[in-house]
C-alpha cells in the first residue's frame, strides 16, 4: 500500500493518512516486493520438452518426482506446506504455460538479485520463497530431496533455453494501468458472475474427497499476506491471462483489475515477516509499499491485524 496507488480513489480515503504511509513519502525505497521484471516483447518461441522423452534413469526419475511435487504439492502438507495450494495452481500446465510464470523461463535467470529479501538469490532460494509465502509453508532445506527434485524438474523443462536471458512468456503479462481505479464493489460483481462457480461464494474453493479441485482464494487455505499474488497488480496480470480457467484473455483489463482488488481485500494468513517486527504498522511500512490492501481498513476491519498464520504452527514470536 503505497502512495503510488493514490489514483485508486476508493483506497485513498482509507489509507493515505496512515503515518506509515506518509513516512514512505521521504523517497526511501523500501519496497521489498518488487515484482518480476517485465518479460521482453515478442513471440513465445521456447517449447519445453515432452514427458514422453524423459530418460529412464536416475535423472529421469528425479524429474518425475519433481513434477509430482509440482502438481501435487499437497503431498508435503503439514511438513513444508500449510495451506491448500499446489505450485501448478499459479503456474499452469505443470509450470509449462507461457504467461503463467513458466518454470522454463525462470531456470536460466537465477541467481538474480531480488528486492524482496535484498540479496542475490539462487533458484533454490526462489523456490523456497514460494514455499514460505504462496504455500504459507516452511521451505524445504537446501539440498533436501523435495527441493532437489523440483530443481531437477525445472532443469529438465529448460532443456535448450538460454542462460541469463529473459525470455518472452516469462512471468505474467503486465496490464496497462486501469482506466478507472480498481474497485472492490465492481470486482465483487465480476467475481459472482465469473469466478464463484468454481472458487466458491466465500472464496473457499472446492474439493472432491480430500483432493483440491478449485483452490481457495482467501482464508486459511489461500496464499498468505506476503505472497506475490496478494499484490493487486500481480493478481490482475495473472487473472487476465489465465482466468476464468479455459477462457484466457476473456475479461476486460478493467474487470481483471477490479476482481483482483476484490479477491485481495479479503483476509488470509499473516505475512510471515510480521514475526520479525513489532507491529502491523512496521510490517506494512517495511514490506508493503506496493499495490495491496495489507494494513488497510476495509468494512470496519483492518486487514492483517491478527496473529493468525493459518495452519503454519510457528507462533508470532517464533
Amino acid at each position, binding site marked *: 500500500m503505497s502512495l503510488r496507488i493514490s489514483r485508486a480513489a476508493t483506497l485513498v480515503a482509507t489509507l493515505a493518512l496512515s503515518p506509515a504511509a506518509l513516512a514512505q513519502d521521504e523517497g526511501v525505497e523500501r519496497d521489498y516486493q518488487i515484482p518480476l521484471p517485465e518479460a521482453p516483447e515478442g513471440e513465445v518461441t521456447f517449447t519445453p520438452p515432452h514427458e514422453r522423452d524423459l530418460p529412464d534413469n536416475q535423472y529421469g526419475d528425479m524429474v518425475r518426482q519433481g513434477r509430482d511435487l509440482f502438481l501435487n504439492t499437497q503431498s508435503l502438507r503439514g511438513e513444508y506446506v500449510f495451506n491448500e495450494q499446489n505450485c501448478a495452481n499459479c503456474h*499452469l500446465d505443470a509450470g509449462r504455460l507461457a504467461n503463467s510464470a513458466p518454470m522454463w523461463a525462470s531456470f536460466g535467470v537465477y541467481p538474480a538479485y531480488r528486492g524482496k529479501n535484498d540479496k542475490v538469490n539462487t533458484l533454490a532460494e526462489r523456490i523456497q520463497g514460494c514455499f514460505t509465502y504462496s504455500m504459507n509453508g516452511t521451505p524445504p532445506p537446501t539440498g533436501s530431496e523435495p527441493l532437489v527434485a523440483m530443481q531437477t524438474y525445472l532443469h529438465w523443462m529448460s532443456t535448450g533455453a538460454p542462460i541469463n536471458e529473459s525470455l518472452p512468456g516469462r512471468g505474467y503479462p503486465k496490464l496497462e494501468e486501469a482506466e478507472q481505479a480498481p474497485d472492490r464493489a465492481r470486482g*465483487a460483481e465480476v467475481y459472482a458472475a465469473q469466478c464463484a*462457480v468454481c472458487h466458491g461464494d466465500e472464496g473457499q474453493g472446492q474439493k472432491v474427497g480430500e*483432493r483440491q479441485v478449485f483452490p481457495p482464494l482467501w482464508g486459511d487455505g489461500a496464499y498468505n499476506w506476503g505472497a506475490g499474488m496478494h499484490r493487486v497488480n500481480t493478481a490482475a496480470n495473472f487473472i487476465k491471462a489465465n482466468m*476464468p480457467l479455459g477462457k484466457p484473455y476473456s475479461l476486460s483489463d478493467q474487470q481483471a483489475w477490479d476482481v483482483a482488488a476484490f479477491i485481495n481485500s479479503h483476509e488470509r494468513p499473516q505475512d510471515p515477516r510480521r514475526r520479525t517486527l513489532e507491529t502491523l504498522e512496521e510490517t506494512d511500512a517495511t514490506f508493503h509499499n506496493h499495490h495491496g490492501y495489507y494494513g488497510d481498513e476495509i*468494512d470496519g476491519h483492518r486487514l492483517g491485524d491478527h496473529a493468525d498464520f493459518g495452519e503454519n504452527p510457528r507462533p508470532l514470536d517464533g
Partner: protein
Amino acid sequence: MTTKRITSGLGLLLGLGLAAGQAQALEGDAERGQQAAGVCVACHQADGMGMDNPNGESWPRLAGLPAAYIEKQLHDIKAGRRESATMMPFANMLDDQQIADVSAYYAEMTAWPTLPTAYQPADPEDAAEWLAHRGDWAEDAMIPACNQCHGPSGQGVGDVFPPLAGQHAGYLAAQLEAWRDGSRHNDPNQLMVGIAERLDEAQIAMIADYYATLPATLAERDAPSSEEDAP
C-alpha cells in the same frame, strides 16, 4: 480466519451468477418423480442406466447425476438452450414441479461410481489419459485438463460439473459435437463450448471412449494388486 466474513453487503451479489436463468428451487419428491418418469424408461431404461447405441442416438445414464444438474438440463431443453428433437417432447410434458420430482428420483436411484481421488501421474504415452489429466495447452488449443473441471477421475464436481466417467461413449461424443454445431449452448459462462470447439475429431472419439470405460479400467488396474495383497 476463514470464518471472518468481510464481504458484508457484497455477499448478496455472490451466487447471482449461477442462479440467473435457473427456476427457483422447488422441493423434489422422488416418489412422485417415479410416476412422472414412467415415459422415460423407454430410452433411459428402468434402472436409469441409459444405453449406448453405436449405430444411433445414445441415451445417457441419468441414475446418480446430481439433482440440480438434471433439473437444469430439463429446463434448458424446454427453453431451447439445448436442442434435442428426441428429448424436447418429453421435457415439455413436465411442469416445474415434475421436473424437480424426476430429478430427485434419478439422483437418488443409484449413486454415480465413486472413483479414486488421489493424485496419479498421467502416462505420457497415453494420449487420452494425458488429455484428461493434463490437458492440451498448445497455443492453438489451450484446453485445460478435463479433470480440472470434471474432478479427479472425471467423477464430477458439485452440481455444476457433471460426471463423465461411466457415461456412454456415444452420448459423450454427441454432446461435444452439439457444442461445436451450436445446438447445445447451455453451459454456465460458456465454460465448455470453447473447449469443445478446440478439440479435434480424433480427440473427441478418444476422450469419449476413455471416460466411458474408465470405471472398468480403474477396477481392472486395482484388481490384480489387491489379489496379490490378499493374505
